[in-house]
């Protein structure tokens, strides 16, 4: 991957809807080159999709909760953590799974409509897995910053004087 390709990825990470012509100008390539680079990223599964960052707390009529669950598991001989991670990440309500260093093994992020729905998932699906030793569930109360974006901050608020030397 060369410098310009990494630059394209960085731009797309910040704004998945950025126009290829715009990207082309910013990194000094032709639009065709940018287009084929992006196609390559998609084929190589470096780019997995183009999602939208939504602050759901601002959406009236939407109900939802997110929990971060610390999971301790018994790794399986020859397979380590991968098998149990897979058994967990296959559930559609699971949004993210990470293998962690430290006091627990897997960090599992789960979304549900209500707290009781998430609680039910933990008690019925997650903690009943053979290899799971314990779970600790933390519900997210408020998101201040997500994926590098500060929610509620006005980017266009320019505090500078209009003309200066």
């Amino acid at each position, binding site marked *: 991957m060369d410098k310009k390709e990494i630059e394209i990825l960085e731009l797309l990470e910040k704004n998945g809807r950025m126009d290829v012509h715009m990207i082309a100008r910013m990194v000094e390539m032709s639009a065709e080159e940018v287009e084929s680079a992006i196609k390559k990223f998609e084929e190589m599964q470096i780019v997995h999709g183009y999602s939208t960052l939504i602050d759901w707390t601002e959406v009236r009529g939407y109900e939802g909760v997110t929990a971060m669950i610390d999971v301790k598991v018994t790794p399986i001989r020859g397979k380590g953590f991968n098998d149990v991670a897979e058994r967990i990440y296959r559930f559609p309500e699971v949004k993210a799974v990470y293998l962690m260093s430290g006091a627990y093994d897997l960090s599992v992020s789960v979304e549900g409509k209500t707290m009781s729905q998430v609680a039910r998932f933990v008690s019925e699906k997650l903690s009943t897995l053979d290899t799971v030793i314990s779970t600790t569930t933390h519900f997210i109360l408020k998101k201040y910053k997500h994926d590098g974006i500060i929610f509620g901050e006005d980017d266009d608020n320019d505090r*500078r004087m*209009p003309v200066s030397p």
Partner: protein
Amino acid sequence: MSPGTSRFIAEHVEALKPSGIRRFFDLASTMDNVISLGVGEPDFVTPWNVIEASYHSLEQGYTAYTANAGLMELRELIADYLKTTYSVSYRPADQVIVTVGASQAIDIALRAILNPGDEVIIVEPCFVAYASAVTLAGGVPISVGTKAENGFKLQPEELEKALTPKTKAIILCNPNNPTGTMLNREELLPIAELVEAHDLLVLSDEIYAELSYEADYVSFSSLPGMQERTILISGFSKSFAMTGWRLGYAAGPVELIQAMTKIHQYTIMCAPTMAQYGAVEALRSGSASVEHMKKSYRQRRNFVTSSFEEMGLMTNRPGGAFYIFPSIKETGMSSEAFAEALLMEEKVAVVPGSVFGESGEGYIRCSYATSMKQLTEAMKRMKRFVDKRLAR
């Protein structure tokens, strides 16, 4: 009828022309929804760790004066920075002074070196304050113009023509505001030769040095024999997005820095203490935040350069700073008329090149230190404006 108070004003101050930027500021300030490409400062807010360090210093009660030349810790960090980044060595104890912005460093440097009538070469188009700072220090500013066909690079023969027995110093801003031009080593060397041959001093304004996009930056002071003839002036405003903190510095030969410190101690005492603690953190934490901003400026530079080319306006491709200086001669308008009409019709503020010196006439300065969203809209509006003019 009261007689007014202007009779109390010193003649040489009365004679100073107000900056041409001022008029545009007043004009743009009265209008809503203006996209301004007229701003000579970063659009980023100071990195959070710097702000936090300054808070912390206040909480800890570090609210007293510092040494006249600035916190020793900060001077040491500045000396380290200059050594590692530009390979120039200065002793923190007596060769570095922390100032209230690079502007104050320029002011006290000029006051420290000029006798009445001494001439100072100013390479135009340039920052609006140089000529007035020379005049206020009792000197005589002598303009040397640069041309677009040379990429606004100072030509040694042009410089030589302007030298007289009274010439004492040259103010050189590299990378340049307003053109974005950056001189490389090969282009600086012949200038250094003239400086040597004519026994001159260089006030090297390197405030934009961190924002150089093509080649590695060469400090004038690092050229053979030039350290003894250079007052290196820089600061935190542009690279760390700290314009409002008013913090700069100068490094140079002991005698000169000490002479400057004399003026500094009687007129300013020291640079603001809380800002100095912020700057300590800025230099300690190093370049990660600078790199991020620089990358963003470079992408925007690429974008605006290609946009102006597409509009049919001739433009240089800036090597540094965050300005581009396209020609508007094709439109047949003066740079002031162009800027004013653009502001009125399309609500885009740019600065007429003429305010940066005679050789800036026919050009406009556009700052690309503005979000991509704003830049995109500004380029769209300018294209519409220029299309009308060029179709005629």
